[in-house]
């Protein structure tokens, strides 16, 4: 526990701190109020509860009358086993108290009630299957299953979502057994076990017969339900896809028909649409900021394709997160692609990114008429400053040389210290 500050501030009012508390935050609150370690208070409460029942009474009253501190959750966050322990202790205390007060139906009842209480707590406590935990997990499973690409989903690749969380089943089993044990203990205590046993035997036989008769039907029903749900999810996907196709693809097609006499616009539109559709189908690059070299280079290439109506054939090998030096490489590569786009003509521009642990290389090659760096006027900053100068400033290098036969190739290289 943290020591209170020396300049004793006005003591905080008594509030329950459910977030830090063990059961309902009473001891934690008292600890704050009195400046005592709540663990001591907890022990005191437990002792008081089990010896005289007073602790139980006080705790119950405190839970009812002491308000929660602001910002504290209504129910303590998941602390299953501790809370369980607390509840068991409370139950014991309660029973003891009732015994002291004379409102008592005999020692025989203590164990059955305790067992039943614990069992029910296991069954319906926080995070248990019956309290929505199972539902959440199932939903989680479906969401997990939906995480693949849209194509995968439409192809039905993710059909094997696991829907039987073992933990939930285990809890249900334990809880059920505890409650069952409680029932047996009660029957034994009241001396009616044998009679009930015979009656139960009959019921059991009937139940087994029913299970044999109805079991397959129930299983089939459950399967159908699961299948239906999957189908529903998939048809939702299809509807979403149809909507998307309608919104973007059909509109682009309309635009293309209208601008059919303008090849440059048509190919720009088609390329843009293709890219969008591809990204959408594979579930990648949905407007996420480019934070790796390959992604950043792709973004740059795409914007130049749109701007200049050229085709950039981008091939990447390897990838790594962007840093300052690599941002400079991307900027230089962008300039190189711009340069190529101006000279390329109709021929596609080839861009190759090779990322190795040692360095990052980018090659930008066009098949245009080519140009001679020495004949470029000194006041043109494009190549000399934005590419060569920039790479040099960041510790890399850039070369410009004519391609074999035709065109120009700009090569960028940046070493990457490990």
């Amino acid at each position, binding site marked *: 526990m943290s020591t209170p500050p020396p300049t004793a501030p006005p003591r905080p009012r008594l509030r329950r701190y459910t977030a830090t508390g063990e059961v309902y935050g009473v001891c934690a609150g008292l600890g704050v109020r009195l400046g005592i370690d709540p663990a001591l208070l907890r022990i005191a409460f437990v002792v008081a509860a089990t010896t005289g029942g007073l602790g139980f009474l006080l705790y119950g009253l405190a839970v009812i009358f002491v308000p929660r501190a602001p910002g504290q959750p209504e129910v303590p966050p998941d602390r299953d086993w501790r809370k369980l322990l607390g509840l068991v202790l409370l139950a014991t205390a309660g029973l003891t108290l009732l015994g002291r007060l004379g409102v008592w139906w005999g020692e025989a009842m203590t164990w059955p009630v305790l067992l039943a209480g614990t069992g029910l707590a296991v069954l319906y406590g926080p995070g248990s299957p019956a309290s929505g935990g199972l539902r959440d997990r199932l939903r989680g499973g479906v969401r997990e299953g939906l995480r693949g690409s849209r194509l995968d989903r439409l192809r039905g*690749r993710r059909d094997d979502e696991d829907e039987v969380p073992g933990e939930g089943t285990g809890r249900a089993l334990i809880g059920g057994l505890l409650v069952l044990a409680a029932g047996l203990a009660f029957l034994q205590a009241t001396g009616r076990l044998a009679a009930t046993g015979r009656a139960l035997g009959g019921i059991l036989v009937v139940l087994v017969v029913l299970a044999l008769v109805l079991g397959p039907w129930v299983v089939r029903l459950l399967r159908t339900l699961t299948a239906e749900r999957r189908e529903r999810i998939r048809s939702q996907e299809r509807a979403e896809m149809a909507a998307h196709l309608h919104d973007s693809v059909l509109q682009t097609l309309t635009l293309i028909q209208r601008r059919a006499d303008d090849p440059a616009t048509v190919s720009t539109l088609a390329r843009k649409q293709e890219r969008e559709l*591809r990204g959408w189908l*594979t579930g990648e690059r949905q407007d996420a900021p480019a934070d790796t070299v390959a992604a950043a280079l792709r973004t740059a290439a795409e914007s130049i394709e749109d701007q200049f109506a050229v*085709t950039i*054939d981008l*091939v*990447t*090998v*390897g990838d790594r997160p962007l840093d300052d030096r690599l941002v400079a490489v991307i900027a230089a590569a962008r300039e190189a692609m711009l340069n190529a786009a101006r000279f390329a003509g109709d021929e*596609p*521009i*080839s*861009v*190759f990114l*090779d990322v*190795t*642990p040692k360095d990052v290389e980018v*090659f930008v*090659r066009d098949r245009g008429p080519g140009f001679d760096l020495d004949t470029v006027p000194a006041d043109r900053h494009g190549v000399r400053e934005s590419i060569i100068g920039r790479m040099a400033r960041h510790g890399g290098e850039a070369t410009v040389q004519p*391609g*074999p*036969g035709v065109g120009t*190739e700009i090569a960028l290289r940046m070493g990457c210290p490990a």
Partner: protein
Amino acid sequence: MPGVSPGSRVRVLLVDDHALLRAGVRAEIAGAVDVVGEAGTVAEAVALIAAERPEVVLLDVHMPDGGGLAVLRGVAAQEPPVRFLALSVSDAAEDVIALIRAGARGYVTKAISGPDLVAAIRRVADGDAVFSPRLAGFVLDAFKDGDDGPPPAPATAAPATDLDAGAVTDDQDIDRLTPREREVLRFIARGYMYKEVALRLGISAKTVETHVSAVLRKLQLSSRHELTRWANERQLLDE
């Protein structure tokens, strides 16, 4: 009967489930090659290949009923051999690699120009491999982590001659590319044509083709885990 005598037109079969695309490709290449048929389904393709005995099959990677992979598996080994060139809009490396491993002699994207496609078809008909820049990138990626160690180099330290493209015989060598092969692939990824690569490296275009064919063979024989994984995933999904 290897090779195609100059002047004779290559017999080509188009396999793609989109009629529009088949028509487009046909219009682009019909002047230079002999399109002997079109198939829109896997079953049709297998039947037509058996009936027409084309030299080259232009094969779509993605089709219903298993795609190009199913066609490759459906066609029994024949003599003279039918050669496959994969044609796809797909960007997925595993799809393309799986097709190459199943026996396709090359991969080009559907964006390829008509003359380039004709050149690729002729090359495949001659028994050579056709690597688009993209495929070169995939292969470099797939063989990547083998090359960070010391290069197993002495063989290629010698000046490049047409002899350094020796056949792949050694089992260990199947899992890695020689520095020369890597160099060639990098040039292809940079957008170089074979003859441009040859010009840059000071070797003959034929040697470049030998290197590329060697890479193709490694791709098909290698048991590197990336490749195996890709292939297995495809198989599991197809069965």
